């Protein structure tokens, strides 16, 4: 319990630091938002009036406090380009990106665990070698290229889905998830290759330990030692890796959304970066930062619960 509280405190501290950095970096960016909104033709009086209206003339500290308090209340400011609350633009996109990330995570586990366990059990065999070889290639395939290949094979040749035919979750939940399957596989492939490889070597490392030999010598079968003794210990590094992978998948989904034409957070982030719409950019970055750090904290806590021996600093 003490550990959980400590972790929660460090989560809040990290997010506070991140929020200051995000706010300040968009503060010191060259170019005045009011001028860029009105264009170069604007008179100085007009620019001044808009600056006053946008609240740009007040001290930085006051505006940071307002911004962060607003963020906590769920008010993320107003978009420069569309003049609507950022919350309206971003709110209904969060479930899309979250669903894509979670689906990718499920696929990663579904693909990686059986492969890793199988190739560890049959280490040195033909299938192990074949899996190792395919894994090595999978790790080199960037997710967006995997996405293009999947689009070509399953979308254009086999007609199993319509590329670009995204259906929103509020229209048809089933079709929404059906469309996300291939994007999720594209994200999951390289990650599951890495996870399977890590799991294999982790199991083999455990198999070389004394307790494993003792278990064998007491007459347990290979499978029994593997499932009852080795796997629990072998999963510890894998869980850490999966936590990092989940955080990575959030970032990866930004690119994959672009490949498959999914209107999630990634797409607004990119258009907002292009439009220099900083309230939207900073809001999305804060959402992603909160998600990533929350995951890391949960992983740390789970890790601690599985193996209380591990002393972690921080």
């Amino acid at each position, binding site marked *: 319990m003490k550990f959980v509280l400590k972790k929660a405190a460090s989560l809040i501290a*990290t997010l506070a*630091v*991140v929020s200051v*950095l*995000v706010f300040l*970096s*968009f503060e010191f*960016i060259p170019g005045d938002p009011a001028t860029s909104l009105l264009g170069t033709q604007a008179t100085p009086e007009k620019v001044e009036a808009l600056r006053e209206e946008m609240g740009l003339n007040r001290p930085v500290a006051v505006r940071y406090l307002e911004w962060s308090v607003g963020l906590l209340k769920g008010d993320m400011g107003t978009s420069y380009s569309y003049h609507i609350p950022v919350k309206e633009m971003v709110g209904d996109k969060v479930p899309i990106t979250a669903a894509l990330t979670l689906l990718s995570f499920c696929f990663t586990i579904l693909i990686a665990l059986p492969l890793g366990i199988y190739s560890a059990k049959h280490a040195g065999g033909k299938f192990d070698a074949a899996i190792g070889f395919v894994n*090595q*290639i999978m*790790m*080199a*395939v*960037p997710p*967006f*290229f995997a996405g*293009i*290949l999947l*689009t*070509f094979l399953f979308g*254009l040749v086999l007609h199993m889905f319509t590329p670009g035919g995204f259906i929103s979750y509020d229209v048809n939940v089933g079709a929404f998830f059906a469309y996300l399957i291939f994007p999720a596989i594209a994200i999951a492939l390289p990650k599951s290759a890495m996870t399977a490889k890590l799991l294999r070597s982790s199991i083999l490392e455990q198999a070389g330990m004394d307790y494993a030999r003792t278990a064998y010598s007491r007459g347990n079968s290979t499978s029994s030692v593997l499932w009852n003794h080795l796997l629990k210990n072998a999963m510890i590094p894998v869980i850490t890796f999966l936590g990092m992978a989940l*955080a*990575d998948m*959030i*970032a*990866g989904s*930004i*690119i994959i959304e*672009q*490949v498959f034409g999914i209107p999630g957070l990634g797409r607004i*982030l*990119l258009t907002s*970066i*292009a439009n220099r719409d900083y309230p939207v*950019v900073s809001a999305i*970055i804060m959402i*992603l*930062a909160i998600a*990533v*750090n929350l995951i*890391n904290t949960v992983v740390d806590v789970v890790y601690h619960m599985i193996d209380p021996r591990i002393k972690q600093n*921080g």
Partner: protein
Amino acid sequence: MKQFFKQNHKTDNSIRQMLRKRKSPMLITGIVMTSIVLLFVLIGLIVTPYDSEAMDATSKLAGVSWKHLMGCDNFGRDILSRVMKGSATTLFIAMGTVLIGIAFGIVIGAIAGYFGGLADEVLMRMNDAALAFPSILLALVLISLFGTGRYNIILALGIAFVPSFARIVRSEFIKQREMDYIRQAELIGVHPFRIMFVHMLPNSARVLVSSLLIGFNNAVLAEAGLSFLGIGVQPPDASLGRMLSEAQAYLFSRPGYALCVGGTLIFIVLGFSFLGEGISEDAKG
């Protein structure tokens, strides 16, 4: 004492020993593939079959032929020539990224790892805050601040890569700090910076080389990803990621376009990852 150092140096001189030993098949494959990539890029810097920018209206989206080994893109530009130029751009950016990442990573990691204490605490806290972001997201934020273009990409990716390198260097230096040869050097009063960069750094070479190659691959993939999103290298500069996003539009009529470009990207990454794995495998046994 001098002899002690000399001997120690000889047995620990990892790279020279590594080259003398029998090499693993993985290392050899890696060396061969990487050499092919480097040769391909170097030739591309001197001469390409066609001008990579020249548009030819008559051969728009032309298929694979002896005239155009990889066909032509939607502007009638020779894809092979563009892949050669694009690979060069990608490798250049990846190299710049890794150089920035490793230079700052070594300085930060070395100070944190060797001195420990307050310096370590402060540097690693900052490092952890940066590592809390996936590097591609960090790069995305930095690009939205700096703007696009090849040098801004190098800067953004380089900064995003510093924390992971700093972490590796730090843990390596903490391990070495306790070793006898460093204790000896401290006893005879060698300056800390000399110990860090003349004694410890060369002995960390083996670990650094393989993490350098992993970092290089990540940089190649990150650059391709950013350019694919259109916020990386800007036209008319050719880049593999950008070409892939163009190729996606002609996926049905000319799947070869995307396959050639993507295949090249995979070949580059695979070569360097074999090289990295081969080196760390060789180091183990």
